[in-house]
């Protein structure tokens, strides 16, 4: 077994681990055993997993070992442990969506993204905690408690792809697939200090994934770095050449040269419309300075006020989610947790005319964003109000209390990325959101990658404050 990283050294990413597997320095079996050990050690406190698929992951690791030894390396996901938010089907493993409504639901087929991950040689280690049906507040009832933020277990991990962000931040997994209807990939990524990427909806097939609001739902990826997100995206994207790679079985070619890139800052979203914390604003300013140092040109951009975007998206979400769940609300509403059940009922109060106004207005807002991309290549704004709040303070109506910084780009369907850009006063991660033009996924990923190479503020995993934890951070070829 290889030696491990010392205390305080940066953890290994998916990409670094893949290079070690490719070079034969470590085997998929070693990697999966390390992941399963870390899950056993940490998950009883963090609750990132709903269902662990250890046997299947071990079997897949043995297969990957044999294939790689025989010279049949499939690409950078070959032999890498990853997970699925528990709204994504994996054949013969329960999809429960954190709800008693689906207590006995065991799909017989893989979702398209699951199949693509398997085809790429990834090791599916299990299903990850979500908010019930990927909406509302953290779910406290069966089948399991909410995931805990690994930087501070009393803090909110974000939602609804909470288990995915927690599993990656804590080093239990190298990557995960989530869903994002109003920021549900980007927000937990932000609060847990990992990268969260939501491409445009048309780029990832949603077959085999539970819906929440079909007009807004997107599939996204979470990982420690943007390069890792690019690897995951490359594997599951419908067109398979998403990041400029010549071949889907190669490492993504993320050009680091950002000279001349025009960046627009939607500053009014986070300084005027819904102000974020002072340290959050400072961290975004620092990130903009990094982009300037990389040769980008930065200017402010004004869009419609954030509450207008939020109202538009939230009306669409509530109406569509209510329509989807109405049969169960009539017949078996006792099987929902209180938070989701009551959140869904709000959708019953939205008239057909108001829903259509929201859809129409969403298209107009999206057009204004398209027009903004005539002047800039990338937009920058906030994704969260600041560091993770206390989990105990997240009530069932929290999603109504302040506008979402994520939902505008679900309404518009532009690709968006959350990356860590600093640590706040409490030592918890802060994040910035980058947004690209339609089909600008590659621009977004290379900008995030270049930023991380220049100024990644993370030098450790959460909880890596003693040699035992630090030893689980990664694998060193030395």
């Amino acid at each position, binding site marked *: 077994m290889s030696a491990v990283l010392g205390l305080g050294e940066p953890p290994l990413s998916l990409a670094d681990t893949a290079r070690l597997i490719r070079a034969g320095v470590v085997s998929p079996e070693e990697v999966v055993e390390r992941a399963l050990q870390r899950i056993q050690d940490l998950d009883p406190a963090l609750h990132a997993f709903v269902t662990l698929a250890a046997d299947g992951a071990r079997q897949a690791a043995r297969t990957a070992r044999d294939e790689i030894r025989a010279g049949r390396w499939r690409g950078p996901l070959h032999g890498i442990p990853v997970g699925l938010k528990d709204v994504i089907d994996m054949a013969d493993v329960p999809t429960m969506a954190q709800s008693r409504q689906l207590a006995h639901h065991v799909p017989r087929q893989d979702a398209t993204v699951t199949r693509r991950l398997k085809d790429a040689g990834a090791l599916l280690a299990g299903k990850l905690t979500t908010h019930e049906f990927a909406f509302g507040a953290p779910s406290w009832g069966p089948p399991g408690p909410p995931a805990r933020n690994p930087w501070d277990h009393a803090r909110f991990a974000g939602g609804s792809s909470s288990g995915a962000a927690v599993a990656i931040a804590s080093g239990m997994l190298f990557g995960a697939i989530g869903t994002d209807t109003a920021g549900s990939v980007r927000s937990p990524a932000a609060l847990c200090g990992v990268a969260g990427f939501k491409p445009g909806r048309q780029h990832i097939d949603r077959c085999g994934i539970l819906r929440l609001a079909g007009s807004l739902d997107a599939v996204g990826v979470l990982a420690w770095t943007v390069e890792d997100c690019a690897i995951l995206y490359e594997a599951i994207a419908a067109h398979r050449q998403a990041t400029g790679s010549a071949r889907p079985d190669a490492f993504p070619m993320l050009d680091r040269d950002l000279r001349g890139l025009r960046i627009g800052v939607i500053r009014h979203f986070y300084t005027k419309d819904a102000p974020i914390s002072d340290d959050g604003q400072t961290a975004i300013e620092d990130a903009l300075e990094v982009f300037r140092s990389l040769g980008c040109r930065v200017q402010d951009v004004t869009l419609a006020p954030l509450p207008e975007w939020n*109202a*538009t998206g939230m009306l669409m979400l509530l109406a569509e989610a209510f329509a989807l769940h*109405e049969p169960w609300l009539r017949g078996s509403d006792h099987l929902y947790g209180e938070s989701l059940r009551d959140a869904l*009922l709000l959708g*019953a*109060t939205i008239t057909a005319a108001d829903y259509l106004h929201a859809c129409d207005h969403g298209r107009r807002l999206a057009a204004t964003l398209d027009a903004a991309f005539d002047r800039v290549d990338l937009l920058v704004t906030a994704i969260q109000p600041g560091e993770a709040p206390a989990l105990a303070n997240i009530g069932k109506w929290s999603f109504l209390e302040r506008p979402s910084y994520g939902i505008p780009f679900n309404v518009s369907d532009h690709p968006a990325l959350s990356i860590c850009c600093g640590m706040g006063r409490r030592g918890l991660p802060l994040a910035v959101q980058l947004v690209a033009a339609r089909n600008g996924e590659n621009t977004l990923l290379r900008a995030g990658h270049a930023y991380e190479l220049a100024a990644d503020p993370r030098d450790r995993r959460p909880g890596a404050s003693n040699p035992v934890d630090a030893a689980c951070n990664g694998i060193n070829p030395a």
Partner: protein
Amino acid sequence: MNDRDTPAELSAAARRLSEMLATRGIAISVARAEELALATERVERMATTVRAAARPPVEP
């Protein structure tokens, strides 16, 4: 728009909500109806925002 400031107004709003849901076959308790009636105020504000942005079928 804030028609739920007094207990009587809240009670009336809750009754309307409860009756509307009942027409769809969804039964809720009085206590839940009052809590939901308060939350629907925020949804109504969102609807007002979106309605204000609505355009006529043909713009002059």
